[in-house]
């Protein structure tokens, strides 16, 4: 065996013409050639976390603090930003997307947005997680992966302990169903190790914490039991990470970040640049183009509204789907549509009247509303490539009159 040891340093001078220098900068091997170009001797890995840059929060107006879990929720998981679910031990949590376009933040310069999660109403614990669908999770089987993210504290309570880890399920558990049963039962008392236990609703033995790998060492964190503990400081971004060995028969994996103790109201955490990558290397966070990242989240949530517009009734006709009255009077007409990308599953659907405060289709010719709007037959009537709404008219509706409605289809895990 032979090896060559390099000192870690911040920069080196450009070498003479015809030469190149291999060196180590910030734990990353680099090469400077005679033109001064620094080539990192490793390509960045594919990031399996969707919405890793917190670009999308389709369920809300992204930049507006929005409250989730209006009732005490120890066993139900609420989606905030696309892909990111929250739980809390006591009412409630707020989420907003923060845009750094006009005021870049040191430490996360590569990302325009970050997500801010704040405890509200009552002190308590919170957990933030993302469930990867089975086909993506299974591509990671039998491999060492790194889960990393940048975070800073919210609120003025000073440094706070948080934890992060990776949950997984094995054959026999739920596959690609809502929440996967990976909802958590919040422990009412403060804890240091395994503060969150898997919900009793989940079949015993099908979900567990994946033990963190001690080699390589966790980044800015300490392994304690089945997760890693880290300290966040208000207003100071820092990157955290740890490696995990995915079992050969894993069905789902779910990165999770949770408070180590009860948070005061107004306290919380900001997260940016999340990553789950194959291999042990600390990654420079990188993303795909915005259209590709959008398509990744649209596989689990699609709507007719603009991406940054919260779904709402009476929001106007822009983007609404269109159809015509097939049968006059109080009869059923159908309005079809095709999804931008096929959905993961049929999911749940919600309709919105574009011109009135109800959930019924609008007859834009007559200026009146349907009395019922639904997907025929409930979920079985919905395809993953497209769907249709059955619209029940009123007596005055005439054949050929124009119909409009908005929708949301939610297949989020």
């Amino acid at each position, binding site marked *: *065996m032979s090896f060559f040891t390099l000192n870690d340093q911040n920069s080196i001078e450009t070498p003479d013409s015809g030469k190149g220098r291999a060196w180590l900068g910030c734990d990353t091997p680099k090469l400077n050639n005679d033109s001064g170009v620094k080539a990192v001797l490793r390509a960045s890995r594919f990031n399996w976390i969707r919405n890793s840059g917190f670009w999308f929060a389709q369920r809300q107006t992204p930049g507006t603090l929005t409250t989730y879990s209006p009732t005490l929720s120890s066993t139900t998981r609420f989606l905030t930003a696309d892909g990111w679910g929250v739980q809390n031990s006591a009412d409630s949590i707020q989420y907003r997307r923060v845009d750094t376009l006009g005021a870049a933040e040191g430490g996360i310069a590569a990302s325009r947005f970050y997500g801010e999660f704040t405890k509200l109403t009552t002190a308590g614990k919170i957990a933030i997680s993302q469930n990867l669908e089975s086909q993506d999770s299974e591509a990671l089987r039998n491999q060492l992966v790194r889960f990393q993210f940048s975070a800073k504290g919210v609120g003025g309570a000073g440094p706070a302990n948080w934890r992060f880890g990776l949950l997984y399920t094995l054959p026999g558990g739920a596959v690609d169903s809502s929440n996967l049963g990976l909802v958590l039962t919040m422990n009412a008392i403060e804890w240091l190790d395994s503060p969150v236990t898997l919900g009793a609703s989940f079949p015993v033995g099908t979900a567990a914490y994946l033990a963190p790998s001690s080699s390589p060492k966790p980044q800015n964190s300490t392994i304690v039991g089945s997760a890693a503990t880290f300290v966040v400081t208000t207003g100071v971004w820092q990157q955290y990470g740890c490696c995990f060995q995915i079992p050969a028969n894993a069905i789902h994996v779910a990165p999770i970040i949770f408070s180590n103790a009860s948070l005061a109201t107004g306290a919380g955490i900001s997260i940016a640049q999340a990553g789950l990558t194959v291999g042990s290397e600390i990654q420079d966070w990188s993303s795909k183009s915005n259209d590709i990242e959008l398509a990744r989240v649209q596989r689990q949530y699609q709507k007719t509204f603009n991406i940054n517009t919260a779904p709402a009734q009476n929001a106007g006709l822009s983007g609404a789907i269109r159809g015509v009255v097939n049968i006059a009077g109080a009869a059923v007409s159908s*309005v079809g549509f095709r999804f931008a990308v096929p959905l993961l599953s049929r999911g749940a659907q919600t309709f919105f009247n574009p011109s009135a405060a109800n959930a019924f289709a609008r007859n834009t010719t007559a200026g009146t509303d349907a009395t019922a709007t639904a997907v025929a037959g409930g979920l079985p*009537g919905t395809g993953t490539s497209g769907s249709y709404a059955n619209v029940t008219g009123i007596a005055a509706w005439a054949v050929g009159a124009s119909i409009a409605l908005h929708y949301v289809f939610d297949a989020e895990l």
Partner: protein
Amino acid sequence: MSFLEFNEGAAPSTPTSGKGTLYLSTAGDLHLVNDSGSDLNLINNDKTNLVRNSGLWLAQRQSTVGSATYSSVGGRAVTADGWGVSNENASVTYTRTDTAAAPETNLNARFYGTFTKITVNGKLVICQVIEDVDIAPVRNSTVRVQLWAKVITANATWRIGLVQLTAAGTVDTVPSGAGLFCTAFGAGTVDPTLGANLAYIAPTATITPDNATTSGSAASMAVTSDWQRFGACFDVPVTAKNLVLMIWSDSQVAANDGINVSQLSLTIGDEVQAWAPQSIQAESARCFRYYQKSFNIDVAPVQSAGLQGGNRGAVSVAGITAGQPLGVRLYPPMRAAPGLITMFNPSAANAFVRNTTAGTDATATASANASEDGFDVTFTGIAAWAVAQGLSVHWTADAEL
């Protein structure tokens, strides 16, 4: 010139704080161990994979439960998305096998494809044509073709090769009709004779194939009942217009025997690759460039399958009126206007548009105005049809190479 030469060996211990150690692994890869203990393989082993459906996720033309039979003697019949088969004699079945509940040793992918020769003994070719716009960046470059494979029953020699559509061919027009892709299959150990303007690219002489042996115009793989990685490198001519990744039996395959494959790749450079797929959404979108349908992804296109996902519209002219259109949008845009568009009545065993209001069917249905972005479904109503009655039709759009 100057260089550092390493001996291969096990990873050294973690260096002290502020240092990093370079070493050469027993696999011949240059690694760096940093002071956190992170072991970084400096070889770029997850390059962009030009093979679509490399993990055999999609088989949109059939049900992904059970097998489907294909046969194109000397031609190419598409089975799983992107993957064609050419057989010496009838027939071949394709099955997508799901390992979710029972992972297989040495295989990371959830799915693999099972290609089975049925009916009589015969040779079998599995191939994927890669589009010109995708292969252009690797012209005049060395590429690595790689896969994981195991046999169904009997250990056998299979061949792996890379075929080019030469300068004399027409871009994105690789022969597919019966007898046109493989004009002769040859005797045992003789490689198939290729069709017009197709030519084998010999493996790169200076690079030893991975778990395979160069012989003639390809490399031979000793495939067993265990999953193994195989690979070889090829120098792509600057004039190549399309590439065809090809795997074929070196001799006739016994009826009901065949090969399982997964984790296929074609990457620029000569480095052995870790199979590194993208998310299922991104991998699916690559396939939709060549084949789309209104049915759920894992549901076989059939008549009378129900209204789920069917394209909707309304009668625009009452009575027996020909040529009324329903518009269909394609997401994402396909590589070219689909050359084969097929319609399916969602509520009856025919290929006509359904009037869901009246519960009756059109008398004729066809496609028109096809483009990369969409097409029209045209139909002829019946006398009883009234304006604005609801319509539905399922469809498939095929632009596969």
